[in-house]
C-alpha cells in the first residue's frame, strides 16, 4: 500500500493527470471551456471587425448616422434613421400579431389537443419553421401582396381610413405586407418552443390545481405562469428572426427609406439594405456606411437580447419570492 503511494508521488504532474480516473472529465471540461470561450471571442471579434470596417463612416457622420433620415449614395450622405425605424417597427408589429396566436397554438397543442391531433399538428408547426425564407417571399409576392392590395387595404382604408396608419394608395407592397409575412414566419418558432416549454411543466402542477377544484382554464393559467420565462425566451428568438430577416422582407416591403405612419407605404429594413446594396457599393465611404448599418443591427440585437435576459431574470426572482 505504502509502496504504491510513494511511486505515485514520483510521477510527474502530467502523468498524474493522465493516470487519474478523471482524465476524461478533465479533457471534457477544458474542451467545453474552449468552445464556450470561442463563442465569446467570436462575438467580440465580430463587433471589432465591424467597428474597424465602419470607422470611416463613424468618423464622418458620428451620431447623425442614427438620426439623419437621408440615405443618398450619390452624394455620400448616410443617415439610417428611416431604415432603423423600418426594422424595429416591422419586427415589433409582427411580434404583436404573432405572439398571442403562437401562445394560443402552444396552449392548444400542449394542454387541450387530443394526442392523435397533437402529433400531426406539432409536426406541421415545426415544418413551417423550417421553410426557407425565399419561399415565404415568393408566396408573399404572388399570393399575399395581391390579396392585401385587393382585399385588406381597400377594406382598412374604407373602415379605418381616418386613422393615419391606413392612409395612402393601396399598392400591396409595403410595411403591412412585410409585417404579415414576418408574423407568419415568426409564429412557428415561438409556438413550437412555447409548446415544448409548456410540456416541460411538471404534470403534478396541473394535477394539484385540478385536485384543488380549479377549472381547466385556471390550471392552464397556472401552467402558463410557470412557463413564462421560457415563453419569453421563445419570443426573443422570434424577434431575432424578425429583425434579421432579409429575403422575404425585401421581396414585399417596397424598399424605400421612408418614415411614414401609414402601414400602406413602402419601408426598408437594415438587413435588406445591406443585402441589396452591398454588391454594387463601389466607394469606400459607401461600404463603410453599410458596415456601420450592420454594426447598428448587431448592437440592437445585443440590446434586445440583454433586455430579454433581464426580464427573464427579474421574473424568476419575483416568482421565487412570492
Amino acid at each position, binding site marked *: 500500500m505504502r509502496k504504491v503511494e510513494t511511486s505515485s508521488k514520483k510521477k510527474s504532474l502530467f502523468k498524474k493527470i493522465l493516470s487519474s480516473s478523471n482524465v476524461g472529465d478533465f479533457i471534457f471540461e477544458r474542451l467545453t471551456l474552449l468552445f464556450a470561450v470561442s463563442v465569446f471571442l467570436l462575438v467580440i471579434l465580430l463587433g471589432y471587425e465591424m467597428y474597424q470596417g465602419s470607422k470611416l463612416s463613424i468618423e464622418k457622420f458620428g451620431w447623425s448616422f442614427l438620426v439623419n433620415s437621408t440615405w443618398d*449614395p450619390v452624394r455620400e450622405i448616410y443617415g439610417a434613421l428611416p431604415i432603423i425605424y423600418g426594422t424595429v417597427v416591422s419586427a415589433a408589429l409582427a411580434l404583436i400579431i404573432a405572439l398571442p396566436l403562437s401562445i394560443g397554438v402552444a396552449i392548444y397543442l400542449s394542454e387541450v389537443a387530443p394526442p392523435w391531433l397533437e402529433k400531426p399538428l406539432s409536426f406541421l408547426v415545426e415544418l413551417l419553421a423550417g421553410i426557407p425564407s425565399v419561399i415565404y417571399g415568393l408566396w408573399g409576392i404572388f399570393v399575399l401582396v395581391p390579396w392585401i392590395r385587393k382585399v385588406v387595404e381597400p377594406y382598412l382604408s374604407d373602415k379605418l381610413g381616418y386613422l393615419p396608419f391606413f392612409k395612402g394608395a393601396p399598392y400591396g407592397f409595403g410595411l403591412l405586407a412585410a409585417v404579415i409575412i414576418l408574423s407568419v414566419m415568426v409564429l412557428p418558432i415561438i409556438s413550437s418552443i412555447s409548446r415544448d416549454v409548456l410540456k416541460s411543466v411538471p404534470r403534478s402542477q396541473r394535477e394539484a390545481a385540478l385536485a384543488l377544484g380549479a377549472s381547466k382554464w385556471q390550471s392552464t393559467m397556472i401552467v402558463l405562469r410557470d412557463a413564462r420565462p421560457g415563453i419569453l425566451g421563445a419570443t426573443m428568438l422570434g424577434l431575432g428572426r424578425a429583425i434579421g430577416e432579409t429575403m422575404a422582407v*425585401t421581396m414585399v416591403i417596397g424598399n*424605400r427609406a421612408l418614415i411614414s405612419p401609414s402601414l400602406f407605404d413602402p419601408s426598408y429594413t437594415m438587413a435588406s439594405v445591406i443585402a*441589396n446594396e452591398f*454588391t454594387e457599393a463601389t466607394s469606400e465611404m459607401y461600404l463603410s456606411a453599410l458596415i456601420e448599418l450592420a454594426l447598428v443591427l448587431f448592437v440592437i440585437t445585443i440590446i434586445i437580447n440583454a433586455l430579454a435576459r433581464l426580464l427573464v431574470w427579474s421574473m424568476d426572482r419575483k416568482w421565487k419570492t412570492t
Partner: protein
Amino acid sequence: MKFRTIISIVFLALSISSVAHAQLQLNGAGATFPAVIYSKWFDEYKNATGVQFNYQAIGSGGGIKQITEGTVDFGATDGPMSDQQLAEAKSKQGADVLHIPTVMGAVVVSYNIPGLNGKLNLDGTTLANIFLGNITKWNDGAIAKLNPKVSLPDKAIVVAHRSDGSGTSFIFTDYLTKVSKDWETKVGKGTSVNWPVGLGGKGNDGVAGLVKQTEGSVGYVELAYAVKNNIAYATMKNKAGKFVEASFSSVSAAAEGSSKDMPADLRVSITDAAGKDSYPISGFTWLLVYQNMKDEAKANALVNFLKWAMGKGQTFATELYYAPLPKAVVKMCEKNISTITANGKKIK
C-alpha cells in the same frame, strides 16, 4: 471498407485538383449583367485554347475592389471607375487600369396601363419628371402630348425602381441626369440612388413583378430581360428628336453615334447618344485589366482572349440578348489591348 472509400475519394480529388493547377487559369470577378455572355465566352475559349477562366459574378463594386487589391487577373464593371479609383489602383499595383468595353446593354421603360392599346411614347424630360414625382397621373398633359393617338386613363402613376445596386440603375440614372437638370441636382446618377418616389423591387424580376402586378405602374428593366419575358416597353425619343424602339441594332447605333467623340480610355457613357437611330438609354459593360501585368503567361493569355472577344466573341452577343460592339468601337478597343505589356515588354 468505408474508410478505404473515403481515402480513395480524397486522393482522387487531390489528383484532379493538381491536374487543374497544371493548366493556366485566369481569375476574374465583377459585374453580374454580362455574366451570361462571359461564361459562354470562357467556355468557348477554353474549348479552343485550353485556357481556363474562373469568373465570379459578385457585382461591379466587388469587381473594382478586387482588381484594385490585385486579387484577380481581371475585373468587370457596368459603371466606369472614377478618376480617384484609378489613382488608387495605380498607387497600389503600380500600373494603369484599362477599360475594355465588351458588349452593350440597354434599359427599357416598361409600364402597366390598363386599357392602353398601342405603344407608349416617352421622352427624357417626361421620364425624369415621372421618376421625380412631378408627373403623377397618366393623363398628364406632357405624356398626352407625346401620345396623341392613344387615350390615357386618369390613373395615378406608380413608380417602380431597383432596390439593389445595379448597373441597370446606373445607366438609367445616367440618362436622366443628362436629360434633366432637375434630376441632376436632386438625385444624380449611381448604382443606387435616393429615389424620390416609388417602390423598390429586387433585381429585374423584382421590378418586372411590381410592374406586372400594379395597375398604373412604370418601371425600368434590362432590354435582355424584357425581350426574354415578352414585356412591353416604351418607345423613347432620342437626341435627334426621333422615336426609337430599343433593339440590338439601335443600341449598337448609340455606340456608333457617340464613337466620334469617345475619349481614348473608353470610360464613356453612351446614354442620350447622337445619331438618328440611337436608342438613348444604352450602355457599355467593361472588362478591367492592368496595362502592365507581372505574370507573362497570364498577360499573354489575357491579351489573346481579349482579341478573340473583340472578333469571334462578338458573334455570340445577339443570341444571348446583348448588343455587339460596332466596328468603330472594336477598333478603339483593339488599339488599347495592343498597349498591354508584361513586365514592360510588349506582347506578341
